[in-house]
């Protein structure tokens, strides 16, 4: 089942319910997936008539796909589903999960030495041998004003794949 994010949980619950009833989205939402955003689309293109369409951004971890669906909240149907190469920004849940994974890493615990992690987390794109089609986060570890470490977290495999120093990040 998908995890949800952002405000108005009742509205989002309804969007998820409608999406689950669509055959194109059912398998995505039944597997490991994350709803990244829902956006109301108040006006249709080319005319001034209001429409009640909502864009839903989903990350399908089983297929490593970004999926976007258009849900008509009047007819309670999914009117379009497409995948895109682009990765949308992390949801709050993904951010929290990445920080939890990083915080559990032995190297991170060692550099923290009991200090607060004070994390900041962004969507990350890997280099080298890391599978390019996975979804990643970079967790900035900030135990002091100037000390920095960076945990690269593979959200697809739910593992920390690298710990990077500030000098290495900056190429110094």
């Amino acid at each position, binding site marked *: 089942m998908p995890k949800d994010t952002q405000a108005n949980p009742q509205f989002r619950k309804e969007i998820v319910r409608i999406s689950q009833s669509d055959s194109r989205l059912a398998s995505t939402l039944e597997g490991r997936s994350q709803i990244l955003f829902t956006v109301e689309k108040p006006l249709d293109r080319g005319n001034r008539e209001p429409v009640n369409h909502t864009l839903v951004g989903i990350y399908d971890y089983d297929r490593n796909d970004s999926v976007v669906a258009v849900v008509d909240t009047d007819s309670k149907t999914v009117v379009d589903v497409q995948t*895109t*190469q682009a990765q949308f920004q992390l949801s709050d849940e993904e951010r929290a999960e990445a920080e939890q994974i990083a915080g559990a890493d032995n190297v991170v615990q060692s550099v923290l030495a009991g200090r607060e992690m004070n994390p900041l987390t962004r969507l990350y794109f890997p280099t080298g041998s890391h599978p390019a089609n996975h979804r990643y986060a970079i967790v900035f570890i900030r135990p002091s004003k100037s000390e920095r470490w960076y945990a690269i977290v593979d959200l697809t495999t739910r593992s920390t794949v690298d710990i990077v120093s500030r000098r290495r990040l900056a190429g110094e």
Partner: protein
Amino acid sequence: MPIIEQDNWRVSFERSASSGIRLRECDYMGVRVLHAAAVPFVHVQYQGGDIGPFTDELRSSSDDFEIRQIMFGFDICARYDLYGPDYQYDHIWRFHDDGQFGSAIIIYGPGEEILGRHTYYIPFRFDIDISGASGDSIQTRRPTGEWVDIEQESVSRPLVPWAADYDWRVIDKSTEKSARLRARTGDNAQVWTLRYNELESWSSWGGALRSPPGTPGSVPEIYQTGQSVQNTDLVIWYIAEISSVDRVTVCGPWFALDGYPTPPPRREDPKHPDHPHPHDPDHPDEPDHPHPDDPKHPEPKLHPDEPVHPEPKLHPDEPVHPEPKLHPDEPVHPEPKLHPDDQTPLTKLSMEYLGRKVEIEPMVMPGEGKAGEHGHMAGNEPLMYVVRVDGKEILAHPMGGGGFHTHELPFVRFKSVQALAETYVNYLEYGIYHGRKEKPE
């Protein structure tokens, strides 16, 4: 969704989860300019190390934003400070009353390293709809100043990067309305023109790829399919590439509109009095255009559902909307000011009331018509008058027993034709006519 109506603009905007303040539909002088605009994310790329890029979201630690009044326009300002001062961005959407507008991101940085070894790629996406979604064409400016069509989806750079020239324009050739675009000096800018498609539009919600925006395999290049960018629905991606060497840095494109309806003159312009609202055939029903100095429109008009400014803090005992204090006998709307002598006019009479030109013209003299046969008065005075107010005509009749009436304002006996005319002006102005004085005595 907040809406600002000010300085000849109507701007809809919203705050999003990861791409900050986004514009929705924007009109200038009642004519569409933008369907949407956004800065989806910031792509940060480090050089020298073996670390991949990441994206900064444009997020704030609070929901605050500011509508800032400036000379000849206004700004919508937001501070994206979720990551703290080392990674802060400020965002300004600026609109001028002459149709210029633009977006600027201020990069505070530099964050992780201070030797200038990382680069910010900032994509600005403009879903431009010049006087409507379709029929737009992209052109570029030759060194001679001539505008030439760009035929297919493509990318281009400024002709002279350090010059303040408008190098592109999106034009609706059927209406001759256009938006010129220029790059900010120092942005190392690319301008991509694509035909709109829905999948591409979804990238505006923060869709990023490993490669920096503007490079192969990234936005917007992955949506380029070689389609024509003439007479169609266009999207402009402006990519600023900013080295961390320069700090604090600002980037972002600037637009100027041409061919749109002429705005009302500013009050500072001595050639024009306060009133003129030039007629434009493109929008004959143009509403009253607010001007910042106009006391009738002292504040930007916001959508009632979502006030931009917080509610004023009132004393607990103070009513939120105090009733206007009127004298018990004081009418809300002014009573008609009667013509000085109120005598029944026997010849054409012109006067002015509430700024409107009023004409009263006797039309049917006794013996010329049959108005008297159905209860209207007879005698030596005219049996019918035409009352003209700003070109609108109504007929007025004298009544048996004195006074006048008109079928346009039924059930009311007026003391004089002048009072009837003035009440008709009140009716046009305020939509009411049942004042005390007009009731039969």
